[in-house]
């Protein structure tokens, strides 16, 4: 195998005509090999760059040379007499030639554009999939979500079945209305055990969505009557995965269970299979797609209004043709108001919210976030455009003489400007190709970095829709950065340019370029400030003391848990109690086995919410000396845990004792409170030994532990209470354990041990707590990474711009500098002169950028964690970073200026 360089070179040889290539290939390769050792390419890391620049430039010139034999396009005819197709062809050919003639400019422009367009394409593909794209339903804009809200903050919640029934009856703006009820997790009875995500839906729901099963039938009203035989509709994926897409699936039964207890088993007749790709609700969180749908069957208490309130339905309606969101909203408010006078105690604290289903799926927070990302990447694209405009302008002024000659010979302004525009469009297209390739790679990276619970994350991809937008954006970009130089050329002063000696440039272009670089610096400052803000915010989040250590902690779920406050105390009727005891015995047996697995350093049973999972159950508390229970904000967040739990999470015991193995259902009921719970319920009084009522059940406080932020670093500290797992009526539990080595290494042995007792353990999940933590901070991390990346790209591009401009200014003033040195100016003075110019440019851009960043900060404030407004340290850091990088970029040209040899300088021209 030949070395890479040679292979590349022989590939490039294909640019030559075949005849030439065949005759001289070996000679050209021999030349290439010898030339690599030539001293003129210097030493150091830039040697290969110089070598390849020279090689490619030669290739370009030679390839162009070949075509000189043919008459140049337009040489025979005046441009205007050419038919337009031929003219376009000629324009393209001229553009290509011109791009080839300055490969270093073309290459830099290409790289910068590919970066800008690639970043924009990747971000746009995320924003489009998550926020912009319509839902995959027929006439999806007519689908509205109707929710009840909690009055003080207007937060939408689910709907009570009674209210849903009343709405359906009284409204006439929707042609149909349906509802779904939250997902449950079932485990298959048949092995291999698999946790299935199920959703209950009303018979009308599939009609509202206008989707019907691919085979079989949808639900009927009769399926919703209490006591009707259980029926289910499968997702296409489940049908394929578990039933091998068997066509005689209809009428077969699937047995499912909840929990470890075989008694809680149910049989479902399969009546239909949904079409491929269908899922509802959309973006239903971590679990992704739903596996199985079952009908909502109202319980007796759901049909009357005097047996408590349950809110469990998500309601969606399809607007009648000709109706609008506003009309629907108005009518639903009227219905709501009349229901409120009829049943005041149901609606005192409830409002109503009608919005497009799409907005309900995406949510305003996510949409704002997406728009913010789009804005940030817009700055990157802007900087890229400014820089390329600058490069093209530099080249256009370098060719001012050529242009002046052409216009003196009668070329029209339009022809000259058009040539430049065509060139920039071609460059933009090249950049788009590079950018799209970059985007394909970036999207896979983004998908892995984005929070898993982002709605419609799985749809993020570079597809035709994204490519179309990229193509349009590239054309806009090309016109955008081509316009300035084109206009500038149009205005060129022919006589003046021709009179000047070959090396000079019009001063107008210098001013324009300075302005462009200034704007570039200002934009870079805006992005850098954003990067610094998000970085600081992320660091603040990571520094929050959780009160627990999530590393090397993992949880295995023994069975999907269904949590109810009725299970908080061992008070169930005796038959149910036996079930609980047998389930808990099983859990403890699994725990004993797991304890012996090598690598496990601490282990505990846990119910009611894994640390950092955000799940928990709150309970009202009555403290001694008080009659009124603590409710609302002051409710206790409860966890059923074992003796090993404190060691697993590495919590701090502050007083009294922790839960012991001897705290069982037979021993006195106890609770361990967190510092914050003690502060709320006892103030400064001594809590240990006191008895409190939790949901009406008396427990003695035996210990106090440090606060843990079990819902993550950004959530306020909650009053937490820990009760012995064996003193609850929870049948199901997770085993949570700390390992010495990486939990992934311990897991296989651990699962084997647990499954010896509970065969279906962890059918759904075996997860590290660190992963939960990662999920909580995923959005912050993503924002931080993206903004820092953008900031780095911005400052690099801006530095290139500064370098280019200073080099240009120095080259333009070589003569003047030569004269100054000849008259005795010290090189240090010259250095200072150039650097002063750079500093002026930098500080002007910096000032403008900081002002803009300050004004834009309020748009990102809601994405930041505990950020002080206009933190001077952030702005100072940005200013310092920009000045250092900017002056470093200007240093090269400045040194070159100081080393100008007056004799050489005066001899030029």
């Amino acid at each position, binding site marked *: 195998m030949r070395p890479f360089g040679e292979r590349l070179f022989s590939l490039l040889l294909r640019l030559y005509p075949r005849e030439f290539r065949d005759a*001289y290939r070996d000679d*050209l390769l*021999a030349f290439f090999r010898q030339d690599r050792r030539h001293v003129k390419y210097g030493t150091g890391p830039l040697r290969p760059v110089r070598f390849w620049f020279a090689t490619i430039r030669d*290739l370009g*010139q030679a390839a162009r040379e070949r075509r000189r034999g043919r008459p140049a396009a337009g040489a025979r005819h005046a441009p205007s007499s050419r038919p337009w197709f031929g003219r376009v062809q000629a324009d393209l050919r001229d553009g290509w030639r011109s791009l080839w003639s300055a490969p270093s400019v073309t290459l830099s422009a290409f790289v910068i554009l590919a970066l800008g367009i690639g970043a924009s394409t990747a971000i746009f593909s995320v924003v489009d999939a998550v926020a912009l794209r319509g839902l995959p339903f027929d006439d999806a804009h007519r689908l509205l979500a109707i929710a009840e809200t909690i009055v003080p903050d207007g937060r939408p919640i689910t709907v009570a079945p009674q209210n849903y029934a009343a709405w359906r009856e009284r409204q006439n703006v929707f042609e149909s209305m349906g509802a779904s009820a939250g997902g449950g997790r079932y485990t298959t009875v048949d092995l291999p055990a698999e946790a299935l995500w199920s959703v209950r839906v009303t018979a009308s729901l599939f009609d509202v969505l206008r989707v019907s099963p691919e085979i079989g039938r949808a639900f009927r009203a009769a399926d919703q009557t209490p006591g009707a035989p259980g029926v289910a509709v499968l997702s296409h994926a489940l049908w394929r995965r578990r039933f091998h897409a068997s066509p005689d699936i209809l009428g077969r039964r699937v047995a499912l269970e909840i929990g470890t207890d075989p008694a809680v088993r149910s049989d479902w007749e399969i009546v239909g299979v949904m079409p491929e790709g269908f899922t509802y609700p959309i973006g239903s969180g971590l679990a992704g797609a739903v596996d199985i749908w079952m009908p909502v069957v109202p319980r007796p208490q759901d049909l009357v209004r005097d047996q408590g309130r349950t809110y469990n339905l998500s309601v969606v309606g399809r607007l009648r043709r000709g109706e609008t969101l506003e009309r629907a909203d108005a009518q639903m408010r009227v219905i709501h108001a009349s229901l409120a006078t009829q049943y005041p105690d149901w609606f005192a604290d409830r409002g109503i919210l009608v919005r497009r289903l799409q907005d309900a799926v995406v949510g305003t927070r996510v949409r704002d976030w997406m728009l913010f990302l789009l804005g940030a990447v817009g700055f990157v694209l802007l900087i890229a455009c400014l820089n390329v405009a600058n490069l093209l302008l530099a080249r256009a002024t370098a060719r001012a003489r050529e242009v002046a000659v052409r216009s003196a010979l009668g070329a029209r302004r339009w022809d000259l400007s058009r040539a430049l525009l065509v060139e920039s469009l071609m460059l933009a297209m090249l950049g788009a190709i590079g950018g799209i390739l970059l985007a394909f790679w970036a999207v896979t990276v983004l998908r892995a970095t984005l929070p898993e619970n982002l709605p419609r994350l799985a749809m993020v991809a570079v597809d035709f829709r994204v490519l179309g937008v990229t193509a349009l954006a590239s054309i806009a970009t090309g016109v955008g950065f081509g316009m300035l130089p084109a206009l500038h050329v149009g205005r060129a002063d022919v006589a003046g340019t021709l009179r000047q000696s070959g090396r000079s440039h019009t001063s107008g272009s210098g001013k324009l370029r300075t302005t462009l670089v200034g704007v570039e610096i200002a934009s870079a400052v805006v992005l850098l400030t954003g990067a610094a803000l998000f970085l600081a915010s992320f660091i603040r989040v990571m520094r929050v003391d959780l009160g627990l250590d999530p590393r090397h902690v993992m949880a295995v779920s023994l069975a999907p848990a269904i949590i109810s406050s009725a299970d908080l105390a061992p008070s169930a009727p005796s038959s149910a109690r036996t079930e609980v005891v047998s389930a808990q015995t099983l859990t403890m047996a699994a725990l004993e086995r797991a304890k012996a697995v090598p690598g496990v350093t601490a282990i505990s049973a846990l119910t009611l919410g894994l640390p950092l999972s955000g799940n928990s159950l709150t309970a009202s508390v009555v403290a001694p000396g008080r009659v009124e229970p603590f409710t609302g904000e002051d409710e206790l967040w409860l966890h059923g845990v074992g003796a090993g739990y404190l060691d697993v999470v590495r919590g701090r015991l502050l007083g009294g004792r922790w839960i012991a193995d001897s705290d069982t259902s037979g021993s006195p009921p106890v609770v361990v409170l967190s510092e914050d719970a003690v502060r709320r319920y006892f103030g400064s009084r001594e809590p240990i030994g006191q008895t409190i009522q939790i949901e009406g059940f008396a427990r003695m406080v035996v210990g106090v532990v440090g606060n843990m932020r079990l819902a993550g670093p950004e959530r306020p500290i909650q009053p937490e209470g820990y009760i012995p797992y064996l003193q609850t009526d929870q049948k199901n539990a997770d085993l949570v354990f700390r390992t010495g080595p990486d939990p992934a290494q311990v897991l296989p042995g651990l699962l084997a041990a647990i499954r010896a007792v509970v065969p279906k353990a962890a059918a759904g999940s075996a997860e590290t707590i660190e992963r939960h933590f990662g999920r909580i901070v995923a959005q912050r991390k993503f924002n931080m990474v993206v903004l820092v990346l953008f900031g780095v790209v911005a400052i690099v591009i801006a530095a290139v711009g500064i370098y280019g401009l200073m080099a240009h200014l120095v080259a333009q003033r070589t003569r003047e500098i030569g004269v100054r040195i000849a008259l005795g100016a010290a090189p240090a003075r010259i250095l200072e002169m150039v650097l002063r110019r750079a500093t002026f440019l930098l500080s002007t851009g910096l000032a403008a950028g900081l002002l803009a960043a300050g004004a834009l900060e309020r748009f990102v404030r809601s994405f930041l964690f505990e950020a002080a407004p206009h933190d001077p340290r952030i702005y100072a850091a940005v200013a310092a970073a920009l000045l250092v990088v900017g002056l470093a970029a200007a240093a090269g040209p400045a040194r070159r200026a100081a080393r100008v040899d007056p004799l050489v300088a005066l001899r030029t021209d």
Partner: protein
Amino acid sequence: LAALSHELTPIAFEVLLSLAEGPQHGYGIKLDIEARTAGEISLGSGTLYQAIQRLEKAALIAGARPSGERHDPRRGRSYRLLPAGRAALHDHLRRLARALEYARARKILPARP
């Protein structure tokens, strides 16, 4: 007037000049030209071999056969001046010399120091 049919481009002229003292391979020609012009003319492979191709077609120079006695595969073929090439070079040099003399006489170019 016969000489004018072999009007030489600047690069072709430099190549012929390099071969005047004896056969050379491609890269040798490049180094020779660089040395003579103090680096002012530095040819890349494409530019050089296109000039060589043109000169070969015009039968002014000839490349050694790959199997030939002076062939070294690491350096590529070596080229030598054909009589027509030598004549074209002489014509060109004569024209240059005349032009130089004229320029000096009219003080267009300073006299040799």
